[in-house]
């Protein structure tokens, strides 16, 4: 057994309102540079929908992720090592910019410089950020927001194509007959990453300490195999630098014990961050399980119980700091995935063992219950509807359980039972034992789960141990002696003028950097000068 720690995330989709704050703050932090206009480390999709980039879940077309070959061995869907090198001159599986969208900018000068006394209002027009030519904006990263255009395109959703035909036929894209939910996506920081495995130059790597998957910008040679190998299409080519870039899990913040930007700014507070312990030696076997419906349990089994004394001992023997073991024991991720078993991985059938899991949304199901003329406050009715209606359970199953509708329904039942249990518990103080029996959980567990899902505070949602530092003072001195910032590479975020606020114009304008590294606005301009 080789025990490792992984920083993982769970998103509670019931709470996502699709406000895109995560996408915007992420973009402002990481990808507001030339060459990364179309790059969204975090994007929010509306499901059903074709997603971003278009149809990215169609692995017949893009050949992302892993599959089992004829002899049952795990291979990259796009082919083995020799085949990959033979396609290095032109990658047949690479999406082009049209599969994302052509980034646009606007000629706002027309508005600013318009002379007085015009009879017509001046209008700014979109221009391509790539060619400078005037263009029509016809697609974007959230073009399908809240089912926009769904009646025309959403039946191209690859998940619908894979669903049983009878269930897919029930998914309608007509007003008041459809359902939707939002799906925020970041890099999955997989345990068995296809992008890392496909990188010819070995520039992509998984950090041994916390499992974050990164691209070494100095060693990336622009072979662009990672982009096509990632089934989630979360590695992007920076077309200005010719190098691959991807979500960094905000590692500088994680190292300092802070949540990622997308989590920090999440309005719905639906993101959870924490450590899970896993056995690296079990990863390959779990990814190679033949039955796709068995993949979910196989992936769960890779995680190690942090409360198990044997695991604790193994972690200590492997040199893991006590702080990390404690964080693993308090991890909301472990609770949601392994204890309550309500979090599910996105597309486990890609066999990458993704580390961003989702609590599936109950709301579209409850809408369906209401449409079916049943009582959405009656757990029995909800249970039956979840079983009978199969909408959108089959759809959720395509996303989260490789098509195993029973597994997806089981999670939804837990969520429905929790709501009903808490309703009677709050209204008249009774304990609905039959509900607890139905989902096989204790009253304490359900109430703790309710607390974690509904009212957990900052420190309960984000349990992130700081990167271990043996001699903090010495390291601080070492860091202070370095004038240059690691993000100051060419094309990097540190090259923008406003990035370093601790000195220069930003500091004079009343901005300062707080002790936790966050930007702050000084209300008293005299402060700090005296």
């Amino acid at each position, binding site marked *: 057994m080789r025990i490792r720690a992984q920083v993982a995330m769970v998103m509670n989709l019931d709470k996502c309102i699709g406000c895109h704050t995560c996408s915007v703050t992420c973009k402002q932090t990481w990808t507001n540079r030339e060459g990364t206009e179309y790059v969204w480390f975090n994007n929010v999709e509306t499901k059903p929908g074709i997603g971003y980039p278009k149809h990215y879940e169609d692995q017949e077309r893009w050949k992302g992720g892993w599959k089992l070959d004829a002899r049952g061995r795990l291979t990259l869907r796009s082919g083995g090592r020799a085949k990959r*090198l033979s396609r290095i001159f032109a990658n047949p599986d690479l999406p082009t910019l049209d599969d994302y969208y052509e980034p646009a900018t606007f000629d706002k000068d027309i508005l600013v410089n318009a002379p007085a006394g015009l009879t017509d209002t001046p209008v700014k027009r979109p221009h391509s950020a790539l060619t400078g030519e005037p263009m029509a904006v016809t697609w974007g990263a959230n073009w399908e927001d809240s089912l926009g255009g769904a009646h025309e395109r959403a039946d191209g959703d690859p998940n619908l194509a894979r669903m049983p035909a009878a269930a897919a036929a029930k998914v309608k894209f007509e007003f008041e007959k459809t359902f939707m939910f939002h799906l925020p996506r970041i890099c999955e920081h997989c345990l068995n990453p296809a992008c890392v495995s496909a990188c010819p130059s070995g520039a992509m790597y998984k950090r041994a300490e916390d499992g974050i998957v990164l691209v070494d910008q100095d060693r990336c*040679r622009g072979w662009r195999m990672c982009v096509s190998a990632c089934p989630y299409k979360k590695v992007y080519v920076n077309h200005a630098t010719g190098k691959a870039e991807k979500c960094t899990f905000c590692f500088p913040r994680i190292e300092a014990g802070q949540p990622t930007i997308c989590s920090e700014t999440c309005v719905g507070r639906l993101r959870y961050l924490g450590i899970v312990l896993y056995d690296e030696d079990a990863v390959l076997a779990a990814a190679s399980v033949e039955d796709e419906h068995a993949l979910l349990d196989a992936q769960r089994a890779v995680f190690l119980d942090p409360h198990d004394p044997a695991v604790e001992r193994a972690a200590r023997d492997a040199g893991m700091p006590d702080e990390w073991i404690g964080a693993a024991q308090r991890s909301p991720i472990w609770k949601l995935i392994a204890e309550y078993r309500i979090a599910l991985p996105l597309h486990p059938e890609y066999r990458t063992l993704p580390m961003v899991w989702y609590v599936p949304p109950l709301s579209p199901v409850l809408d369906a219950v209401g449409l079916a003329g049943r009582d959405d406050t009656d757990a029995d009715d909800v249970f039956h509807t979840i079983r009978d209606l199969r909408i959108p359970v089959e759809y959720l199953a395509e996303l989260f359980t490789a098509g195993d509708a029973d597994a997806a329904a089981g999670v939804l039942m837990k969520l429905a039972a929790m709501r009903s249990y808490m309703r009677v518990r709050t209204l008249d103080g009774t304990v609905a034992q039959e509900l607890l029996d139905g989902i096989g959980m204790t009253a304490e567990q359900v109430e703790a789960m309710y607390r974690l899902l509904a009212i957990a505070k900052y420190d309960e949602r984000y349990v992130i141990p700081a990167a271990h530092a043996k001699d903090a003072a010495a390291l601080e001195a070492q860091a202070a002696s370095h004038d240059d910032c690691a993000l100051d590479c060419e094309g990097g975020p540190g090259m923008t003028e406003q990035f370093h606020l601790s000195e220069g114009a930003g500091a004079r304008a009343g901005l300062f950097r707080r002790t936790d590294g966050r930007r702050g606005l000084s209300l008293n301009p005299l402060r700090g000068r005296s």
Partner: protein
Amino acid sequence: MTTLLWVALPYACLAVFAAGHAWRWRHDQFGWTTHTSQLLESRLLRLGSPLFHLGAFGVIGGHALGLLVPASLTERIGVSEHAYHVVSLSAGTVTGVMLVAGLALLIARRLVNGRVRRVTTTMDKVLYAFLAAMVVLGMAATVGRNMLGGGYDYRETIAVWFRGIFWFQPHTELMTGAPLVYQLHAIGGFLFLALWPFTRLVHVWSAPMAYLWRPYVVYRTRRRAVGAPGPAPAAVRDAARRPVSSGR
């Protein structure tokens, strides 16, 4: 003039080739990339790029065979002059045509497609112009001189001079007698080597052959220790909640 062209220039170019690569490797790892533009345009590239690269492999192999292998060696292993000539001419023409077609497609792609045109740097333009000139001269020598014309036995002159450079015994008299198209191609070739380290061609040296035997998933351990963390966000938040005093 003779010494300048056939002794000084080759050595100067080789020196720039070596020193340029050393400098670029040490100071510009970030710029050391293929600078792929397949994201911006894929249709023409999928035809042009493999043609160009495979053609280039053939052309490089042909040059190695023609310049580095002495005629006496091929004769000793039983390859007649005529057989050599037929093989080199046919293989050289085929790979040359592939190279020309691929290069033409890639250049056309840079001209026609606005997205790719915008990301084409000055150095790219210099490189493409140089490549085109070299290929035209090379094809003129192979097809024009050797196939259609009377033929020229470069193995007894140019190849000997070329190898002499590496033994520090350049025989300049062998080059002064060579046809003009060969002279130009030879000079251009050395200038091309001098240009090489400053272009995107450096990606050739990063051909990822190690991928064939490395483990799929790469793990890396942090080399430098992480600095001491600041106070927890919650602590900062709680501290900020305290009423602000009017002092300071």
